[in-house]
């Protein structure tokens, strides 16, 4: 059995974002990078599948991007992935979800994965498209937004999260793709011995040109900060005076202080 998990490296969302030179995405200077939060759940689920199955499936982690994504791939291997595929692409941020999905599908097609895990969305672009498009291109069964996963007797039973906390329960058979939602599991922290072990695992590098055959279907024409509505008061400075200012505002504007 073979399992694939797809991850994206994204900036820390607490960063200050500035438009890049072309004004169509953020400038990469002064950013700290990490694994997309949703993808941590995907990696954890893939590792749990591997640990549970006696057949010890081979677990591959794949990411598309520039050199810096090596860090995210190493983290995934320290969490338990066996090998990594780095699709080298210095311009991955300019690719649309259709192209990213096409690249993944082009790689996966020849490999015959039984299970594929992705995040439900990337935190920076947040399109929630790549996973489902990959499934469509590979003609795999697919369920998005899973918060529960159980693999027994050759079939997978999943729970998908719906609005208001209701869940939908569904069953499907491999080959199948799942997009993982927050709370699906508790992603592990890589331990020091596993970080050391991960250093010895293989990272295969593939040039993006070898996999990409598609033109983008959409274009980002502008990246910008939202217009501030400007109605709110912003308090800054020392804690003591801010507490007094806030209390004065609450006394004036609300009826909750007794």
């Amino acid at each position, binding site marked *: 059995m073979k399992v694939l998990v797809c991850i994206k490296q994204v900036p820390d969302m607490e960063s200050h974002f500035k438009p890049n030179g072309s004004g169509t995405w953020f400038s990469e200077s002064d950013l700290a990078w990490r694994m997309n939060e949703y993808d941590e759940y995907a990696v954890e689920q893939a590792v749990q599948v591997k640990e549970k199955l006696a057949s010890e499936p081979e677990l591959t982690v794949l990411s598309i991007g520039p050199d810096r994504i090596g860090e995210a791939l190493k983290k995934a291997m320290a969490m338990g992935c066996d090998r990594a595929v780095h699709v080298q692409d210095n311009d991955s941020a300019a690719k*649309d979800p259709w192209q990213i999905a096409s690249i993944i599908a082009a790689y996966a097609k020849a490999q015959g994965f039984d299970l594929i895990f992705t995040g439900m969305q990337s935190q920076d*672009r947040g399109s929630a498209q790549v996973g489902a498009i990959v499934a469509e291109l590979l003609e795999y069964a697919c369920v998005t937004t899973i918060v529960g996963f159980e693999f027994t007797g050759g079939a997978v039973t999943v729970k998908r999260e*719906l609005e208001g*906390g209701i869940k939908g329960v569904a069953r499907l058979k491999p080959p199948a793709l799942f997009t993982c939602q927050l709370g699906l599991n508790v992603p592990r922290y890589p331990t020091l011995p596993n970080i050391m072990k991960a250093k010895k695992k293989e990272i295969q590098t593939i040039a993006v040109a070898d996999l990409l055959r598609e033109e983008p279907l959409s274009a*980002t*024409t502008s990246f910008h900060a*939202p217009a501030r509505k400007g109605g709110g008061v912003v*308090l800054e400075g020392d804690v003591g005076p801010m507490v007094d200012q806030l209390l004065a505002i*609450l006394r004036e504007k609300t009826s909750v202080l007794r």
Partner: protein
Amino acid sequence: MKALLIGEYREGKLLDTTYELLGFADQLGAEAVMLLVGSNDRLPAYGGTLYLADAAKCGEYNPDLHKQLILEAVGKEEPDIVVFMHSSYGWDLAPRVAANLRASQVSEVIGLSGGGFEVGCCNAKMRRTVKPATQRAVLTIQAGAFPVQQPGGAPQVQFLDPCGTGTVEFIGYEPAEAKDVDLTKAEVIVTAGRGVGKRDNVPVIQALAKALGGELGASRPVVDAGWLEHSHQVGTTGQSVSPKLYIACGVSGAIQHLAGMKKSDFIVAINKDRDAPIGEIADVLVVADVLQFVPALTAKL
């Protein structure tokens, strides 16, 4: 321009968001036709063409079958855009339909701008303008971003008959976890976000809630990490609240959180990041470390 709108139906009911799709088409000035996998007994109140398939036959969640039905309606109507809600139903189906049509998909549209669509990015901190490069586009729209069209009229129904079974077998629904805390009645809610740092700091937030005679709320990561029970969660997958005072402590303001609390009468946000999107809806944004500010505030009450 012609829009094919994909209505939503769940647990035997037509969802009200269906009227937001009509509001969106109206704002675009598009001619609207609709498709619904629902029931002839619960038709949407609108005066146009409705392609209807029976949910009792197709299943309420059957992505392969629903996709086929949508593609069939696309073939008949040749719409310029196919529009879904950005909901668990919409984001699941839209990419499948788009990939089949080789059409551009724009996700979670919040506005229109110069021939393109405005969408959020970077956890709602920033915006992008996206333009489809294909003739036909698939869109998902953010709940609440476009006005609801008042229901009225009766549709001309064209029945669609599904064929085949699909690769995903829908088993049923599991109800939301029982709520032992009813946040909807609270006058004051003080919410702990991931910015409180760790479980051991939650009592600091709880102390403020108590001093104000209010309830303790939580953002999703706080619940996912097990610091608080799900019954405290505010947002699209938690509770929707509208207290007199809502204090968000270390909450960034992601759309799914805002959807559950933006109707609060007065909103205070305490965040060390001046750019945090919660600042867009807060009446007061206190730029500070929660662990310094909150205890100091509690001490003065």
